[in-house]
C-alpha cells in the first residue's frame, strides 16, 4: 500500500548534544535521506573583532584565547606572530622553543577532543571519550604548571611567552612523553581495526580535492582529501624548520581519512616535542619590549599558524595608536563549514552527525 510522504524540514537546534557547540542546522529530510542543509550560526558571536579595536595589543591575547577554546595556545601563537610581523619584533630562542612545545601539546589535546567526540557521535557513548579525556587531563595539568590556567591559557605574549617554566615541568613532561605513545597505541588498536567504525566511516562524506581547495578548507580536512599542505612546512614560523616531522595525508577525503590524519598528527606532535626538549637552549623567554606597544601608522600584517583545526590567521591593520585599527580573524572552522552542503546532501541522518564531527568545528571560532 503506497504511503504518502513529503519532505520535512527539521531544525537541529543550537542546543543539542551532538552539534559541537551552539550550531544550528536546518535540514530538509525525505524520510532519513537529507535533501538540503542550511547551517545557521551566530549564536556565540561576541564581537571579538570589534572588542579588539578597543584593547591594546597585549590585552587582546586574552580575547584570542576564547576563540577556539579547545586549542587556545595556537590562537595565542597566531596572534603573537601577527603582532611580531607588524612591529618587527624578534623572539628569543628559548621563547620560540617553549611556544612550539606548548602548541604541539595543545594540538594533541585538541585532537584528543576531536577523536573522542567523533567516537561518541558514532554511538560509543562515553567510554572512548573518557579514554581520550583522561590523556587530555595530563596535558592540561602540564599547562597548569606552565601558566596557571588549563583552557584559556594566555601563555604567549607578543615577543615570546609570559614567563619561564618551573623546575618540575621538565620531569613531568618527560614522564608524559614516555607514557603517552602506548596510550595512543591502545586507542589506535581499539578503534582503527574496529569493523563498525570502518563500515560507518569509509567512503562516507567524501570531499574531493578540487572542492576542498575551492572552498578554502584547511587543516585535517584538506589533508584528508589528499593535499600534503601544512603551514608549518610551507611557511615555517618559530622553530618548525629545525625539527623533523611528517605530514600525514589521506587519500579519499572520507570521514575515516580525516579521523586517521588526526590520529597520526598526534604521533608527529610527540616527535616534535621530543626534538624540542633536546634542542632547547637557556636564555630569556620574552623580548624586551616597552610597556605599551605601538606599530607604525599604516602598517599591516597577516600572521598565520597551522592550528589543530586548520589555518588560523590574524590580519592586523594599525593606525599608530596603542590598539589595532582592524583585527580580522580568519577562522578555520568557519571556512571548513563552507562544504557542509557538499558533504551532507545525499547521506542519511546518522551519517550527518558523524560527518559534522569529522569536520571538527568549534563554535567559539566560527562565531568569534
Amino acid at each position, binding site marked *: 500500500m503506497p504511503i504518502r510522504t513529503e519532505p520535512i524540514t527539521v531544525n537541529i537546534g543550537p542546543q543539542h548534544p551532538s552539534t559541537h557547540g551552539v550550531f544550528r542546522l536546518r535540514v530538509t529530510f525525505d524520510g532519513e535521506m537529507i535533501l538540503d542543509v542550511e547551517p545557521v*550560526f*551566530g549564536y556565540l558571536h561576541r564581537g571579538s573583532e*570589534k572588542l579588539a579595536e578597543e584593547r591594546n595589543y597585549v590585552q587582546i591575547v586574552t580575547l584570542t584565547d576564547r576563540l577556539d577554546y579547545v586549542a587556545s595556545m595556537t590562537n595565542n601563537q597566531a596572534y603573537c606572530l601577527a603582532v611580531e610581523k607588524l612591529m618587527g619584533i624578534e623572539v628569543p630562542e628559548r621563547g620560540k622553543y617553549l611556544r612550539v612545545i606548548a602548541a604541539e601539546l595543545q594540538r594533541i589535546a585538541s585532537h584528543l577532543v576531536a577523536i573522542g567526540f567523533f567516537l561518541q557521535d558514532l554511538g560509543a557513548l562515553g567510554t572512548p571519550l573518557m579514554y581520550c579525556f583522561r590523556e587530555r587531563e595530563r596535558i592540561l595539568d602540564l599547562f597548569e604548571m606552565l601558566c596557571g590556567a588549563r583552557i584559556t591559557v594566555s601563555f604567549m605574549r607578543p615577543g615570546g611567552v609570559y614567563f619561564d617554566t618551573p623546575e618540575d615541568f621538565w620531569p613531568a613532561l618527560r614522564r608524559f612523553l614516555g607514557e603517552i605513545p602506548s596510550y595512543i597505541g591502545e586507542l589506535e588498536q581499539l578503534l582503527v581495526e574496529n569493523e563498525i567504525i570502518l563500515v560507518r566511516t569509509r567512503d562516507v562524506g567524501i570531499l574531493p580535492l578540487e572542492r576542498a581547495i575551492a572552498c*578554502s*578548507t584547511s587543516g585535517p580536512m584538506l589533508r584528508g582529501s589528499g593535499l600534503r599542505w601544512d603551514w608549518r612546512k610551507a*611557511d615555517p614560523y618559530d622553530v618548525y624548520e629545525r625539527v623533523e616531522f611528517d605530514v600525514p595525508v589521506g587519500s579519499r577525503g572520507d570521514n575515516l581519512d580525516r579521523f586517521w590524519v588526526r590520529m597520526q598528527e598526534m604521533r608527529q606532535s610527540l616527535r616534535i616535542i621530543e626534538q624540542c626538549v633536546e634542542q632547547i637552549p637557556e636564555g630569556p623567554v620574552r623580548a624586551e619590549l616597552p610597556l605599551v606597544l605601538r606599530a607604525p601608522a599604516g602598517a599591516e600584517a597577516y600572521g598565520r599558524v597551522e592550528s589543530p583545526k586548520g589555518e588560523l590567521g590574524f590580519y592586523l591593520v594599525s593606525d599608530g595608536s596603542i590598539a589595532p585599527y582592524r583585527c580580522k580573524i580568519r577562522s578555520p572552522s568557519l*571556512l571548513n563549514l563552507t562544504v557542509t552542503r557538499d558533504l551532507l546532501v545525499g547521506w542519511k541522518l546518522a551519517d550527518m552527525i558523524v560527518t559534522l564531527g569529522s569536520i571538527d568545528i568549534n563554535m567559539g571560532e566560527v562565531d568569534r
Partner: protein
Amino acid sequence: MRLRERYPDAAEQWGDSGLWVKPESVLEVMKFLKEEPGLELNYLNSVSAVDFIEYFEVVYHLTSFKYNHSVVIKARVYGREDPAIPSVVSVWQGADFQEREIWDLMGVRFLGHPNLKRIMLWEGFLGHPLRKDFQDTVQY
C-alpha cells in the same frame, strides 16, 4: 606577498603591502590570477574589509599551492551609503561565508552573491556593527 610576475591591466597601483585594484574589475583580475600559468593562485586565504572612513578597503589574501607564493589584493570602495563590489564566489567558493559576514558586519554589498544574508547577527538587526560610526541603539 612575494612573487609577482606580471600584473593585469585593470590594476590601479601597487606598493609594498599589496596590489590595489579597481572594484569593477575585481572579478576579471581574480579569474586571471587563478588561471594564469605561473601564478595559479588557487587558494583564497581570506577576504576582509577595513573601514577607513572615506572608503572601505576589501582585502583578499591569496596563495598558490603549486608555487607556494602569496599575494595581497586590495580594492577600495568609496561611499558609505551602499558600497558594492562584485563577488568572487564564482572564482573561489570559499568566499561565500566571508562575504556574507562582511555584508553583515560592515555593510559592503557583494554583487552576484547567491545568498547575501546576515550570517552572524539575526535577520532584522539594524545597522552594521563593525563600522567605525556604529551607534548601538540599545542602552545598557
